[in-house]
């Protein structure tokens, strides 16, 4: 077992060696431009891109013609939201999204708001979910787009996407979902779920960084987008720029592997996650799950350890690559906006650690991680004035803290 152990698979994943192998020839002997129509170098590159497009589409139940390659999900989200807003502005100016969306959704919405669009940011329940009913109530005759993430990156909670998609169909409103965390981990089907636009990225599913895709529905309805990048008219004019063939091949291969192995793999990652969670929670009282207890991504568990600060804990468990909702590193001292939106108290938000299990983790790593977390949390609690006060029966909420 090698240290440190990578348990941050919601942040990025290791590129699968099979993906790397598939990519390599496209850097060297097969280096053509997919847009070169007049020689074999171009033809083989184009063929590889089209194969990858089909592989990506197959994973989400789409057709290859509905896949637009981008630089990643941030670009996909920007293109979906700004592209729809610009194209449908005569129809309306209202967009609905939710409080715990990724910044790559919230910030484009904020920009549109400055430009005169109206944005409704829905609150989420204590598990981080948005309901179709909330959306129904927020829809106006000016609503042109609903953008709700498939699964949350910090807390792993899965939204009722099919219900939201059905509602949007019924109302004739476009539905975009940021499915970065879901694609390749849990079943995603744009037809069955009524999704019109879907953002995804390769590097969260064992593909390379720098490549992603936007699914854009072609019929019922045919979705149109105002492009953000103009140029050679690549990707049906929606995203100009020479296609990064090696990355696209890698994205395709990653999707192919996921399509074939997802069912088995998600069982394995789920079992590892539950083993980690149980070993930790059975041995540490006052440890809380952030997000939905069941309806969450198989590999994600987000825990708050009362009386222990997250960043301080990360220093103690430095053999584990994890992330924390504590914002002690940022100058703002603001903990995670996602945890705050759930109504997790700030003190528990500061105490949170996200564990992201993935394809390459093993039971041995999980056992090691659990033991380390239990021993470090115990050590830090012994060092925590809050723990001491709680043991003495002092209600921490009743204390007049000297805010600084």
């Amino acid at each position, binding site marked *: 077992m090698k240290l440190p152990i990578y348990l941050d698979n919601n942040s990025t994943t290791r590129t699968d060696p099979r993906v790397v192998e598939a990519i390599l020839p496209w850097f060297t002997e097969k280096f053509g431009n997919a847009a070169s129509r007049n020689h074999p170098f171009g033809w083989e590159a184009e063929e590889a891109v089209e194969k990858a497009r089909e592989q990506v589409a197959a994973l989400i139940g789409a057709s290859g013609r509905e896949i637009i390659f981008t630089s990643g999900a941030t670009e996909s989200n920007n293109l979906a939201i700004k592209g729809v807003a610009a194209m449908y502005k005569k129809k309306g100016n209202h967009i609905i999204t939710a409080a715990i969306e990724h910044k790559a959704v919230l910030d484009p919405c904020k920009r549109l708001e400055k430009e005169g669009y109206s944005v409704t940011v829905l609150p989420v329940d204590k598990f981080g979910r948005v309901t179709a009913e909330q959306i129904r109530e927020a829809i106006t005759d000016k609503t042109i787009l609903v953008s709700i993430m498939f699964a949350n990156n910090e807390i792993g909670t899965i939204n009722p996407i099919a219900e939201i998609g059905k509602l949007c169909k019924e109302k004739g409103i476009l539905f975009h979902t940021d499915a970065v965390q879901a694609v390749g981990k849990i079943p995603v089907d744009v037809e069955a779920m009524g999704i019109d636009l879907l953002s995804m990225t390769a590097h969260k599913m064992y593909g390379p960084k720098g490549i992603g895709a936007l699914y854009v529905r072609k019929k019922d309805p045919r979705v149109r987008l105002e492009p953000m990048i103009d140029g050679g008219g690549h990707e049906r004019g929606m995203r100009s720029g020479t296609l990064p063939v090696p990355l696209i091949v890698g994205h395709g291969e990653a999707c192919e592997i996921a399509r074939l192995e997802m069912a088995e793999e998600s069982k394995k990652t789920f079992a590892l996650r539950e083993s980690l969670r149980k070993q930790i929670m059975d041995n540490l009282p006052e440890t809380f799950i952030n997000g939905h207890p069941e309806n969450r991504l198989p590999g994600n568990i987000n825990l708050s350890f009362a009386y222990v600060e997250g*960043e301080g804990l990360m220093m103690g468990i430095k053999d584990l690559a994890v992330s924390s909702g504590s914002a002690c590193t940022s100058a703002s001292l603001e903990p995670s906006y996602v945890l705050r939106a759930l109504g997790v108290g700030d003190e528990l938000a500061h105490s949170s650690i996200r564990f992201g299990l993935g394809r390459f983790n093993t039971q041995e790593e999980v056992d090691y991680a659990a033991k380390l977390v239990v021993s470090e949390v115990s050590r830090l609690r*012994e060092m925590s004035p809050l723990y001491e006060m709680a043991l003495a029966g002092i209600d921490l909420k009743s204390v007049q803290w000297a805010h600084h």
Partner: protein
Amino acid sequence: MPYSDAILEHYNNPRNVGSFSQTELNVGTGLVGAPECGDVMKLQILVNPFTGVIEDAKFKTFGCGSAIASSSLATEWLKGKTIDEAMAIRNTQIVEELALPPVKVHCSVLAEDAIKAAILNYQEKQAVPAELVAAH
């Protein structure tokens, strides 16, 4: 963010973790910070009332590694100092000793606040009997 060896040393082997009884007259307790801000430090000094020398110091901290290290270092420095010498400890000295990065300077400020709060608490406790005596 890479941490300095000094921070890691104090984090891994914190000095003087623990508590004195808050009700003792010769103990001064400082509790600063707030859980929702992500740092709370409790720093205590045990003072010899005859010499005014801090004979022992203890801490407990909820916070990041830099906060734990800052309070651990503070307790080390406090031992053997007089109240006046302790009052002269500045957060900048802690920043220097631990090589705290700019985003962690607030941890040293909190440690200085904790020292001052503990001294103030000790002085208040000492002042009470004097006032009572004067009132009689």
